[in-house]
């Protein structure tokens, strides 16, 4: 060792003493809010919904204040598929539960959560929705966290002004549309330029209002490569009536629907340029940006003449899961339990225009969603057909074609062909 250095170390100067004392003090202060030592487990938490990343950052900060053994690192940019391939997936995932999750669930990449008390609190009406998307036998692979319900948004003031009641049958809807058209108001504002708006609105609402979606897709899957004009179920046979409704509904829309997009639609509906708008609760925030005073209500789109057929479109907007490959499952479970605490969980859904997923979830907080509460309570809901068709099939583009005036027959035939070709190769 260097002689000079050892002599300095031996004599504790006043200056180095102060530095040392300061460091210890700072260390103690840091330990209070950010423990770094032994006994602390760091977990990665994957959340990809861009609108709520900040919301969850706040929740993570709150969680850190309640305990000192688990530190949560939020990740919203990793490539999830690549992470699973590298065997280093996030310890806790909080994602939209749709077709992109199917592979992870069905190949058993997600651990079983059925022994958690939180799993037992889930509303049994919602479990079939989760299983319809993807299921691993004998496991509770995910815990649904947030359910969004979508239907017709309507301008309450315009409905009141022209004395139109909420339509519960197709004929009433047609009469309401006639009333608005006579008054020079576009009944619907449609936005065909953005294909997803056609798929989630016109396409899903008409199909979901007419067809028993779970049974249709179960039969369609068992048909596999033989889906076509001669199979038991097919798009060309079973969707024809719904697509005829799409064509009828397009005649009630704004003239420039073909060149309007989602942003244009939000602006126009917020300005009162149409009485109805086929969008989900995610649009409410955008509408408020233009017109805070807009008086919005919701009702399921009637496509038959039997009010008993009325249903709303739902999707499991967020679901929690812990991968098998996680080495910190216990820590991940403790954060999952924290997120599932009723005061945290219910507040999230109230703040984000969503419905709860537990048996004891309170009614939707936003008054605009009140029109859908009854259907949520009665489990009169369905998963959008466009979300159950694998993304390799451009169903949103096909829906756009029909909205723009293509004959539904050949388009549905192509959809059948796509389905059978996909079944052949996968």
């Amino acid at each position, binding site marked *: 060792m260097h002689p000079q250095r050892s002599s300095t170390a031996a004599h504790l100067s006043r200056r180095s003493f102060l530095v040392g004392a300061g460091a210890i003090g700072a260390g103690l202060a840091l330990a209070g809010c950010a423990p770094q030592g032994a006994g602390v487990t760091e977990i990665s938490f994957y959340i990809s919904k861009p609108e709520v990343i900040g919301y969850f950052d706040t929740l993570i900060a709150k969680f850190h204040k309640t305990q000192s053994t688990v530190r949560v690192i939020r990740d919203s940019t990793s490539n999830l*598929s*690549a992470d*699973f*391939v590298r065997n280093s997936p996030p310890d806790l995932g909080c994602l939209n539960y749709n*077709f*992109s999750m199917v*592979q992870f669930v069905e*190949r058993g990449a997600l651990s079983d959560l059925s022994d958690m008390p939180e799993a037992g609190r889930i509303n049994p009406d919602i479990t079939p929705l989760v299983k319809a998307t993807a299921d691993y036998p004998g496991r509770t692979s995910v815990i649904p966290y947030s359910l969004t319900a979508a239907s017709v948004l309507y301008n309450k003031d315009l409905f009141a002004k022209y004395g139109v009641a909420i339509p519960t049958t197709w004929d009433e809807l047609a009469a309401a549309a006639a009333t608005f058209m006579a008054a020079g108001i576009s009944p619907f504002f449609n936005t*065909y*330029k953005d*294909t997803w708006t056609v798929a989630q609105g016109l396409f899903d609402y008409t199909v979901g209002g007419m067809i028993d979606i779970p049974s249709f897709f179960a039969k369609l899957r068992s048909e596999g490569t033989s889906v076509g004009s001669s199979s038991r179920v097919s798009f060309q046979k079973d969707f024809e009536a719904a697509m005829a409704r799409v064509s009828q509904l397009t005649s009630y829309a704004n003239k*420039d629907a*073909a*060149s*309007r997009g989602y942003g244009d639609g939000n602006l126009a509906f917020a300005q009162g340029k149409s009485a109805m708008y086929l969008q989900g609760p995610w649009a409410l925030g955008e509408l408020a940006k233009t017109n805070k005073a807009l008086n919005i209500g919701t009702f399921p789109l009637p496509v038959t003449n039997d009010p008993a057929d009325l249903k709303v479109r739902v999707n499991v907007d967020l679901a929690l899961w812990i991968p098998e490959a996680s080495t910190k499952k216990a820590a991940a479970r403790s954060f999952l339990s924290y997120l599932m605490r009723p005061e945290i969980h219910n507040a999230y859904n109230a703040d984000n225009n969503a419905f709860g997923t537990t048996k004891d979830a309170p009614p939707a907080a936003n008054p605009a969603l009140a029109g859908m509460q009854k259907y949520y309570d009665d489990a009169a809901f369905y998963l959008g057909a466009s979300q159950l068709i*694998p*993304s*390799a099939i*451009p169903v949103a*583009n*096909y829906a*756009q*074609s029909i909205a*723009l005036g*293509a004959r539904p027959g050949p*388009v549905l035939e*192509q959809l059948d*062909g*796509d389905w059978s*070709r*996909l079944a*052949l*190769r*996968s």
Partner: protein
Amino acid sequence: MAVVTNALPGGKARVRGRVDKTYYAFLVPGLVLFTLAITLPALMGIFYSFTNSVGYGQFSFSGVINYIALFSDPTIRGAYGFTIGFALVTVAVVNFVAFLLAIGLTARIRAKVALRAVFVLPMVVSGIVIAYVFNFLFSNSLPAAAGALGFAPLEQSLLANPDLAWVAIVIVTAWQAIPSTILIYIAGILAIPADVYEAAALDGASASRQLRSITVPLTAGYILINVIIGFKNFLNSYDIIVGLTNGGPGTSTTSIAMSIFQGFTNGDYSYQMANATIFFLIALVIAFLQLRVTRGKASA
């Protein structure tokens, strides 16, 4: 080092025309990069086209099923039909317009250099930006103008018409591609010796005769290069279509490159790898064609 100093001029090795091994060493970095970044991924892609892989996880071999499904898929056939037709039309439009502009920009006119700069400007703007600007023009400005003028056919957006959306894509692609084509034509026209024109003028040839008998034949090599390079580029069209129509209305303007890329995002990896393999073979044929043609011209 010792080897290099020994191989001085006049050494036997140099006389026999053998290249010093050091030169080969310089090839190694490029070769390694090319192999790792291009050749290997391409071979892997071809390999995966014979499986049912989704890009990760387990997979099994499926033989030529992807190819069978591919050839019976109307969406894929539509993408090939659209892309090839679009490339042919665009290459014709681009070269015709660019050639005329190049003649104008090489003529004895005022502010020649400034005008050339103006015409070349679209080249420096990114394709996706151009596409979004034109998207707005086609969706809002053009229908509004047509409505004010009472011109019914254009009151509906061109982009929303399944039969005419491709016209809009041709216009925008041409707008972006013309500048680089102009530059090559200007170079070609300026390379023609002035005395040929003088002789023609003395013989009483008119301007149009000079164009037909001198300018066009003497720039034939440039026309050929522009046509082949342009065609190859337009076959790869992606960004402008994404910004204008995103493949729609329906799937009427989905290009081959777009359908291949959708395989990554839609869990259809192996299927679109089969598509990419077919597309690669087509590109290979065009590349050989280009090589043959340009080699002949370069030596002439």
